[in-house]
């Protein structure tokens, strides 16, 4: 592939051909056939945001119940269901699907400078299967079968003896659905990053956020099987009488915890790493300089990935299990201190030596700094054994992990949304409304959760549906609940801003923030083929470091969807690959799989009979149709395998 001499820009007719090759189907069924990553990525974001709202409504209900002593809003049984579904929704249906799947599916191909994600159909399938999993949990709640054994559903409480009925089964299958989804997306994202990067984007020039997505994808690949295994064991104990957790015949309840935390520890980082990667992406843009300490940051990201599993080893062999359930988030936050501190210092150095522009996304970045720091401090407090004894399983712990989770996920999420919504919708969000949103949320958040520290210190236990007036917790609880009102108001302002933006926001143009990464090298919103001219890359910030005559890639076909495959390490072009087009079969397969999984809750034969439609739809999905363009081309070139 020699670099040839200057060529002309694409003709309008070329673009038309590209647009036709990459056209996304329309209409009702078209919605279910679309496999382009921008569409699926937005769906992941919107759906997980809806789950955030739903989980938030449950949180508000809990806070309303707790606002006064002996309040009669929720009974104990309903309260159990609600905190379980709140926690499960936030972790499994909001945090990972938003921060990993949503941002990842939308951004990764754009950041790589390619036209679609690798395995777009698998990716679309992963979306539908996630939606079904979420619906399962929530329909369960609505038909009074809401899971009620806490978000990690320990046996024996969740086992057949203590939770008869179907509550825990709904929870266990929700896990299977969401983890299948995360795994499918992890494969797509990792393959895209390793094989579809623009020529020139060597590993050493990969944006931090791609490093993070790759790390998280690999973590998902190793961690999610554990929770699928353990939730399947739970389900089998409950449906076909296996005895994994039954001590009477050699089973062991601790097996559940071992397996669950093999997933649970990495999970914290799976939630948290995408947040820090958003910070690492935004800080340089709004400091107008390259990130300070690229290598240390990348090392921290990768190291965090290893630590996720390392913490598990530490717990299992050094500390033993009893401590683990209590100080779970604490240990996680302690281990993360070194890589996180490294990143903090690099961010601060970047800001220090840059020219800070305090735009809306940056406001959320500072919010993150503040909130996360407090979460870290209370984590250090929890790590000291006497404090831990005092506040164990109290609201102090609830306060701490909300600082970590909301600081680590929600604040970066809003930073990212304000940053990339102009790319997604093509229009700017209103800065004034955005600031109102920020301050309402920030104040409300601290009101609710800072207060909980004191409640915890005064002995208020978590997971208890009410308390008596003699405890004198009423005033603080009222304050905490008032904060929820502020947060809710902030979210409403955000939604107003968002819908207003879609209708009448100022046009963003390709690169409203003058960012340096490749998603800003194309129109907002991107056309269905992402880039009219495929870029090549010359530095870590592709647009800032480009030569005046930075080459472009030519020679991919324009009559069919085709992507360029490059080398994993040095991203030299290797071959051209057809990108699978729209298809209804991923959707139908997800329906078939859902039927099998849900059926298996009620009868062990569900898996056996349910497998038949799964096989049929899978074959229809994968069966080759027509002659592949590859073959037509080969025939032109008369190569051996055209016989």
């Amino acid at each position, binding site marked *: 592939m*020699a*670099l*040839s001499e*200057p*060529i002309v*820009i694409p003709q309008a007719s070329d673009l038309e051909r590209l647009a036709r090759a990459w056209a996304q189907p329309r209409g009702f069924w078209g919605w279910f056939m679309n496999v382009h990553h921008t569409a699926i990525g937005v769906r992941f974001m919107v759906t997980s945001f809806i789950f955030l709202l739903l989980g938030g409504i449950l949180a508000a209900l809990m806070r309303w119940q707790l606002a006064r002593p002996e309040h009669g809003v929720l009974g104990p049984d309903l309260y159990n269901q609600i905190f379980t579904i709140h926690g499960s929704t936030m972790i499994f249906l909001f945090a990972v699907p938003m921060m990993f799947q949503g941002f990842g599916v939308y951004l990764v191909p754009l950041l790589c400078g390619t036209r679609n994600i*690798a395995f777009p159909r698998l990716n679309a399938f992963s979306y539908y299967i996630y939606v079904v999993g979420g619906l399962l949990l929530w329909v369960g709640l609505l038909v009074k079968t809401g899971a009620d054994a806490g978000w990690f559903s320990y046996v024996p409480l969740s086992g057949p003896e203590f939770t008869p009925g179907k509550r825990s089964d709904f929870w266990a299958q929700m896990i299977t659905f969401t983890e299948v989804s995360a*795994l499918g997306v992890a*494969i797509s994202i990792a*393959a895209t990053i*390793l*094989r579809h990067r623009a*020529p020139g984007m060597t590993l050493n020039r990969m944006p931090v956020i791609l490093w993070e997505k790759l790390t998280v994808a690999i973590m998902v*690949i*190793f961690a999610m*099987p*554990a929770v699928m*295994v353990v939730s399947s*064991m739970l389900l*089998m*104990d409950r449906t*076909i*009488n*296996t*005895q*994994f957790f*039954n001590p009477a*015949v*050699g*089973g062991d309840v601790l*097996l559940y915890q*071992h*397996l669950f935390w*093999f997933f649970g520890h990495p999970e914290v980082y799976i939630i948290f790493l995408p947040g820090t990667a958003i910070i690492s992406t935004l800080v340089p843009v709004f400091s107008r300089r390259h990130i300070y300490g690229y290598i240390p940051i990348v090392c921290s990201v990768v190291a965090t990935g290893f630590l996720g599993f390392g913490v598990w080893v530490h717990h299992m062999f050094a500390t033993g299990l009893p401590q683990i359930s209590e100080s779970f988030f604490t240990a996680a936050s302690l281990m993360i201190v070194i890589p996180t501190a490294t990143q903090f210092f690099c961010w601060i150095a970047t800001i220090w030596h840059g020219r800070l522009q305090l735009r809306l996304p940056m406001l959320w970045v500072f919010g993150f700094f503040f909130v996360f720091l407090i979460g870290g401090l209370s984590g250090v407090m929890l790590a000291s054994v006497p404090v831990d004894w005092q506040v164990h399983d109290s609201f102090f712990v609830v306060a701490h992990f909300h600082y970590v989770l909301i600081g680590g996920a929600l604040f970066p999420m809003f930073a990212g949304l304000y940053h990339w919504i102009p790319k997604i919708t093509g229009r700017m969000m209103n800065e004034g409304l955005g600031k109102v949103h920020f301050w309402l949320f920030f104040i409300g958040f601290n009101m609710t959760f800072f207060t909980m520290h004191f409640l915890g210190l005064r002995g208020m236990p978590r997971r208890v549906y009410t308390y008596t007036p003699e405890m004198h917790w009423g005033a603080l609880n009222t304050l905490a609940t008032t904060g929820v009102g502020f947060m809710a108001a902030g979210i409403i302002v955000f939604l107003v801003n968002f819908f207003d933006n879609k209708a009448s926001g100022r046009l963003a143009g390709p690169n409203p923030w003058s960012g340096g990464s490749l998603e800003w090298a194309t129109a907002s919103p991107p056309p269905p083929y992402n880039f009219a*001219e495929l870029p*090549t890359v010359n530095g870590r910030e592709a647009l800032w470091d480009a030569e*005046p*005559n930075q*080459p*472009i*890639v*030519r*020679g*991919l076909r324009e009559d069919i969807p085709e992507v360029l*495959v490059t*080398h994993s390490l040095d991203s030299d072009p*290797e*071959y*051209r*690959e057809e990108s699978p087009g729209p298809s209804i079969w991923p959707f139908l397969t997800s329906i078939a799989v859902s039927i099998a999984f849900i059926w298996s809750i009620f009868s062990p034969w569900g898996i056996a009979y349910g497998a038949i439609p799964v*096989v049929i739809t899978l*074959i229809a999905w994968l069966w*080759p149709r027509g*002659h*592949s363009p*590859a073959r037509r081309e*080969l025939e032109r070139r008369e190569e051996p*395998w*055209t*016989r």
Partner: protein
Amino acid sequence: MDALRERPVLDVSGLPTVAFGRSNTTWLANVFYMMIEGTMFALLIASYFYLRTRTSNWPPANLPPTLSWGVINGIVFLVSLVPARYAQKVAPTGDRAKIRFALMGLAAFAVLNMVLRGFELANLNCRWYESAYGSAVWSIMGLHCGHLITEFVETVVILAVAFTDKMEGTRLVDVAINSDYWYFVVASALVSDFVVYGAARFL
């Protein structure tokens, strides 16, 4: 836009559209898939040994699984590597007759393996509902059966494609990757056998 006129290009039109082996994207995805499934096996096997440490009689009140069927099937699994490797070798040539031959051989072995697996299951000398031991044994075997059946179906489907003229280009790569997956099935069979038959006897 005028600036674009002057930009040099990296022309990729001469690149191939089919790649065998490691540079292929689907090959990579298959590796990820095997990593996922390998983790599942590892966790189930770890659970087996964990439960093993929790009890003094292992297997409890059962005979260990009858060795003969496991050994026979293990040998058959090993021999089945021959057609799998052959399929991988002929795939890049695009010779449809040879590909069909190889895949038929592979499918025949898969059928044989499944039949023998049936005998294995009948002679495990335990039931999954009797004890945690039984559950652990059956879960490992069950997961492996899932893979065996999946791989069988996949082979048959690719074989069907090989009877049409659609067996070209990237489909040939699928033939080669299917063999990779078969290697995984064989390897996991041997490891599972080692645990199910061996650990109950010797550990």
